[in-house]
């Protein structure tokens, strides 16, 4: 079933995908920090307001993933920020998240050695987003 990009339904689907992933379960062992994704508004792409995705990840499990205001995501231990269209590129495999971070297309805030230690886990999380059938606002027909 298609879900609207970065909606509450998308967050539920994302959480399910993460918890289904045996690769994430292994790679995320020992992780105990919150991660916030800030999706910046792009009104010309029909994404009018910035949103925040707050991910409560613990030891290879997604305990909770919620969509709310960007300010909530900015309070997390690790924050990754990018405009809507960049996140869309990540979710559609047009942009590799690791490359995106090295190029500054995705801006990362948080302890770098920790996030680098969990590169495999973050790559698998990215893979999980690509498995969700998404209705993109800039592609909506009606």
């Amino acid at each position, binding site marked *: 079933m298609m879900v609207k990009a970065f909606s509450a339904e998308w967050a539920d689907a994302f959480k399910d995908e993460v918890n289904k992933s045996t690769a994430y379960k292994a790679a995320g062992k020992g992780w105990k920090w919150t991660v916030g994704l800030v999706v910046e508004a792009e009104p010309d792409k029909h994404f009018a307001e910035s949103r925040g995705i707050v991910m409560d990840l613990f030891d290879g499990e997604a305990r909770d993933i919620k969509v709310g205001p960007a300010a909530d995501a900015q309070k997390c231990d690790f924050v990754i920020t990018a405009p809507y269209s960049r996140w869309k590129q990540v979710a559609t495999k047009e942009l590799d998240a*690791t490359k995106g*971070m*090295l*190029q500054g297309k995705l801006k990362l805030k948080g302890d*770098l*050695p920790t996030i680098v*230690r969990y590169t495999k886990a973050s790559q698998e999380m990215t893979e999980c987003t690509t498995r969700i059938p998404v209705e993109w606002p800039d592609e909506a027909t009606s």
Partner: protein
Amino acid sequence: MARRSDKLKPEPKKEGLVDYADDEPSAFASMLGGLIEANVESRIEKRKDFSTLVARVGIWVNDIDEGVTLDFKGRGGWLTVHNGLVPNRTLTIRTDAETVMSLSNLKIGVFGLPIYYDEVGRGVAAKLLSGKLKIDGLLPNVMTLNAVTRIFSVQ
């Protein structure tokens, strides 16, 4: 005599252990500089290498077409990060973004040597053998590469 003692004086540091040669460091330069600074600040075992290492190490990432030069200056621990590759490098590592991340995930074993027999290490060794990881200047500078790996490793 005066000239000699001047030479021994450390250059004034700007701030912290790492500074940037360019007014606008690239995202890659900021990330590597930030990674090394955080590593050295939080891990006492990395400080000895960092404080004594004198080497210019280039890292070129083929799939993003970007690179940096890490200019380790010794002098008690000081690194200048340049955008792109600058001349007179001791070592130059050329590989893809994923392998750069793998290099920073190499575990360090006994005698401070990187471990190449676990999953990450085998992956790095395979890239080296297949030519997907190239290290210019490796043979005369193996010890330098090991020191850089120890500083760079987050494991």
